[in-house]
């Protein structure tokens, strides 16, 4: 295939990664100035962009794939974006400012935006490559699981985190016997404190999901297809489907090969510009900013906004990092967490318990500011707490009512009613 050589009328932006981060960044650019770039987008998946967050509802049968597609091919055409779907970039030549795709297609760039996201981590145990052992990352995985649900009974989900539990819930809804296997003693330990995760476990067990905590997978057994999972302690459970949801790893192979400075991920500054090459920017799960990487959607949107501003030369805003909040997308279970909800020696806890109503709330304070929140059963005030955390507002004056929500705190001109709302 012949290389594209003619110099473009407009500066060219090549975006590697056709996922939520990449597309959001492009959207922001178009919003600021649709004419500044001739945009090429490369993606490994053979279709337009969809809302990855909504895969779980698709799996649980609450949504159809069409419903979660956010950017059909037509959108790219309408916005005069050249989409190379299903043709991943395999090489970046930063000297000559060109990228080379799997198809051999080469495209030169003036600016390069990396949005390569992350790939699921697969525990390197024997049998992890057997058919019927999959990760939970994209729509193919979902389709695979749905097929498996048709003609198989028992599923094992390895990983009791956000994704794992959503997968387990989905598979259960599809009629499979689901066992969730988790290495630590509490589910979603990165999003929940122990009491909340206990409540969550009870709720899911009521729905029929089985749990094996502090279970270390030793081997996945099977000949032509997975048949069982064995643990370090020798215990063995049957499985016709194994879903690995033990976490993600930033997808940085390409960046590393092209010599961009990476640590856990591609290191960027507050403008999302790579440290090694002023022409190269990066957003999303493949980014390491101020030592943190993010696996959630909210930060990636914030990054996209800042990054786009700089790419179109309207650079003034800075990305300071994000306070992340989580919501579990399992219908009927209201769960919210944000910020540093584990706390430490210098933090203080506010705790509310109403077991009868299945409500548990914990706010973590540092000085007179909220730094973390865990809400279970009643998450109505989640966004408000997140706002308090992000704004770093002084809550001393409403501390005694804080736990009871915005309504009580902002009545009779309580201090926060006056201050601006996010």
């Amino acid at each position, binding site marked *: 295939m012949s290389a594209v050589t003619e110099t473009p009328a407009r500066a060219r932006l090549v975006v590697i990664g056709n996922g939520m981060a990449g597309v959001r960044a492009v959207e922001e650019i178009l919003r600021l100035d649709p004419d500044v770039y001739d945009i090429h987008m490369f993606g490994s998946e053979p279709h337009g962009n969809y809302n990855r967050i909504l895969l779980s509802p698709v799996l649980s049968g609450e949504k159809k794939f069409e419903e979660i597609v956010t950017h059909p091919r037509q959108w790219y055409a309408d916005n005069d974006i050249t989409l190379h779907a299903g043709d991943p970039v395999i090489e970046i030549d930063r000297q000559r400012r060109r990228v080379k795709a799997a198809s051999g297609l080469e495209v030169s760039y003036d600016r390069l935006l990396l949005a390569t996201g992350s790939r699921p981590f697969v525990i390197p145990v024997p049998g992890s490559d057997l058919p019927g052992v999959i990760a939970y990352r994209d729509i193919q995985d979902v389709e695979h699981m749905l097929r498996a649900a048709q003609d198989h009974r028992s599923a094992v989900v390895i990983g009791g985190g956000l994704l794992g539990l959503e997968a387990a819930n989905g598979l259960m809804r599809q009629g499979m016997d689901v066992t969730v296997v988790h290495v630590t003693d509490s589910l979603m330990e990165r999003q929940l404190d122990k009491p909340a995760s206990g409540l969550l476990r009870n709720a899911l067990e009521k729905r029929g999901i089985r749990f094996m905590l502090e279970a270390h997978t030793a081997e996945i057994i099977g000949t032509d297809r997975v048949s069982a999972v064995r643990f370090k302690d020798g215990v063995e459970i049957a499985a016709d489907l194994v879903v690995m949801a033990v976490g993600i790893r930033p997808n940085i192979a390409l960046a590393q090969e092209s010599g961009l400075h990476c640590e856990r991920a591609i290191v960027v500054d507050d403008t999302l510009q790579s440290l090694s090459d002023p022409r190269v920017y990066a957003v999303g799960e493949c980014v390491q900013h101020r030592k943190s990487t993010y696996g959630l959607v909210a930060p990636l949107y914030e990054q996209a906004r800042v990054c786009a501003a700089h790419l179109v030369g309207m650079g003034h805003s800075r990305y300071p990092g994000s306070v992340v909040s989580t919501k579990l997308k399992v219908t009927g279970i209201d769960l919210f967490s944000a910020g540093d909800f584990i706390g430490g020696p210098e933090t*203080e*806890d*506010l*705790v*509310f*318990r*109403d*077991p*009868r*109503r299945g409500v548990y709330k914990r706010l973590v304070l540092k000085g007179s500011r909220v730094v973390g929140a865990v809400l279970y059963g009643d998450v109505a005030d989640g966004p408000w707490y997140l706002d308090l955390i992000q704004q770093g507002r002084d809550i001393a004056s409403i*501390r*005694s*009512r804080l*736990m*009871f929500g915005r*309504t*009580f705190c902002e*009545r*009779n001109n309580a201090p926060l009613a006056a201050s601006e709302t996010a």
Partner: protein
Amino acid sequence: MDGVSPEGKLIKTTCPYCGTGCGVDVRINNGVVEVSGDEEHPANRGKLCVKGSALNETVGPGGRLLYPEFRRALSPSRGRRVSWDQALDHVAESFAGIIAEHGPDAVAWYVSGQLLTEDYYVANKLAKGFVGTANIDTNSRLCMSSAVAGHKRAFGEDIVPVSYDDLEQAELIVLVGSNTAWCHPILFQRIVKEKERRPELKLVVIDPRRTATTEMADLHLPVRGGTDVWLFNGLLSFLHQHGIEDTAFVEAHTSGLARTISIAENTAGDIRSVAAQCKLQETALSEFYRMFARTEKVITAFSMGVNQSGAGTDKVNSIINCHLLTGRIGKAGAGPFSITGQPNAMGGREVGGLSNMLAAHMDLDKAAHRDLVQGFWRSPVIADKPGLKAVDLFDAIDQGKVKAVWIMATNPVVSLPDADKIKRALGKCELVVVSDVMARTDTSEFAHVLLPAQGWGEKDGTVTNSERCISRQRAFLPAIGEARPDWWALSQVACRMGFAEHFAYESVHEIFDEHARLTAHQNGPEDALPRYLNLDGLVGLDRTDFDDLQPIRWPVPAAGKGSAAGMSLAPFSDGRFQTADQRGCFVPTTPRLPQHAIGDDFPFVLNTGRVRDHWHTMTRTGLAPKLATHVSEPFVDMHPHDALICGVREGELARLRSRWGSCVVRVSLSGQMSRKNVFVPIHWNGQFASDARVGALVNPVVDPVSGEPEFKHTPVQVEPFLVSWYGFAFSRSRLPMTEAAWWTRITGEDFARYELAGRRIDKPWPQWARAQLGVAADDAAVDWLEYEDQSAGIYRAALVVEDRIEACIFVSPRQDLPSRAWLSGLFGKSSLEDVDRMALLVGEPFSPGEDTGATVCSCFGVGQKTIEKAIEQGCHTPSALGRKLKCGTNCGSCVPELKALIAQTLAPA
């Protein structure tokens, strides 16, 4: 005696609280007791105060003593139910035994102004005529005895020469040492009403405190406590110096003027020195003197501020002297007027219920009187020397001289001075018999024998109020449990002691008849021993007549016989007194300061008294939610500067100490106290608070003549009571309250509320709170909501049972706990709505504005916030507020507070 009102039938009876003696109409409609003022009763003409209006809340079986019990003293829990026969036999035998071994003076009765005249009569007859001891005294000693002594010194007999109607004819009313607005609300309302009708009627109030009463006064003299004699000696000499004298009257009908005047002039000859001594402004003082001088129709009404003093009797006489000098006595709208504290203080006096009286206004020390009474009683013996007065009586018990005491309808462990000593004394006493309506009082904890008495609504007999008006207390409920009349229990013991024929009373009217006959006995115009107290006209009433008896003021001459003992029905209107020479006596009164002066160790004067909505030791008013809202906690009121000096803050706790005892109460800075003075209410006790018996502090100083204790002047110190946390709890059931260093129990509708404070707790708040509310620590099934801010030391929890709130508890290291008003309301709801459940631990309604604030008008339950709003909306007079919110339109005792609120709210901030 167990009269029961048929459904709907109207029963007329008399209020059992203050000495006003209001008539009460009672109806029972499908089991619900309804009370209202008796339109026909001369005392109240249809009005009732808050306490009276809430009487129906106090007649339930809750907390009542139902059966006779034997108790091992100091283990009140381990009472053993016995039959009346066992109990009465035991009492009779023990009394007889002790009398046989140690003589009659080794036994004693300590009775009460709460007793009916008939109960009193039997007790007095048994003690003085048959046991042969005068060791029968009454809590009237703490209330009226100085007035009695003053009357006897001046008039020769204990006669109150003024009636309520006179108040409405007076041109000047001087209230001395009386917070009438709170303690005799209906009487005060009559004065206020008359004042509105006749603005020229002037009201002067002499009281160290600013009170609801002083609010309504034309002139308030904040006299220094204990200096009243200077003030009235000053008045006497002022009148003398300015020739304001009824010379003819003085010449013809009095004696002892010269000496009295000279002492008055020497001790209080010039206004300046009097003003200095009494800590009054000279101008205000002379204003009062001039008002008194220029007004013919003047009534000087006095109460506990005068009586409860080491110089009480002199205070009374110094007042009477002024009326004698001006001849303003025995005339319509004029005279010295003792307002009694208790419903039947006067009835007790009529039958001789004090240890220094005999019976029917006759004297122990007069042989002729003794013979008359003994002859009438046909009794084997007759006490011939005064017995022990209340304070001495308990000293004698403490010293083991008195070995058996029968306490009736009173609570000396709470109400007597140096009350801890009373505990000690009773703890040692060989036999303590207690007749009471309530199962648990601070006093009953020391009883060996408990006898269930009838409560108001079950009792049947007569009482006499402050204006000598005898009215009936009628039964409208069946006696609860095995409660019997006190006269019956006394008679039964008398019978068992071998005096059957003299105490064979079948019905209460027989006792009244005997009493009436005794008053008339040898009391005709020609008889040698005339007594003004004469009920000749009431002799021979049968059961029906007795039941139909209308309120009547003594003396009651027999029809046809003309006035009793040839005397006019208005006392002294003919200038004749009951002294030997029939002259009224001027009594020289040399002023003296209270025995215990304040000093560096004890720099404040402790004053005690009542609050509006409670009565004595709360055994009854403590049961009425309606009465718990006005003042819900024991408090010490003091001057802000003094508080600053003592390092105590409003709303926090303070410990008061005297040489005799201590208590811990909430600090209030109402602005009503002058420097160096503190006030603590008398009501709270071990049943309602951890440590609030003010009686424990009061000095056991008594008036040398009357033996009445000095309740209004005890040197004390005030210090902060340091606690590390404050809190409150609500519970549908009564809680043990063992963990808190300080607590008060407040009765509410369907719940008890506890105000709490404490030091360290031995376990984390969640466990502690569960323990307090009696919830198993690890019981996951219970519906238990909780909120904890551990580092701030804040914890809140609620227990919900079947969607209904059962209990809740709030603690905080600061006084920043939410308002109790809204939470109280939740206990009225049969089920807890979600919106309430969410708000529960905030302690505030989800929709703001439901909190009406502290109750001001108890009758209609109108809160301060509501009233303030109404004032802002333009109600600038109490009557306007009344029209809008009804507050102050029933008993009117909150009107002064309404006025104050109006003033505050309208004052430019």
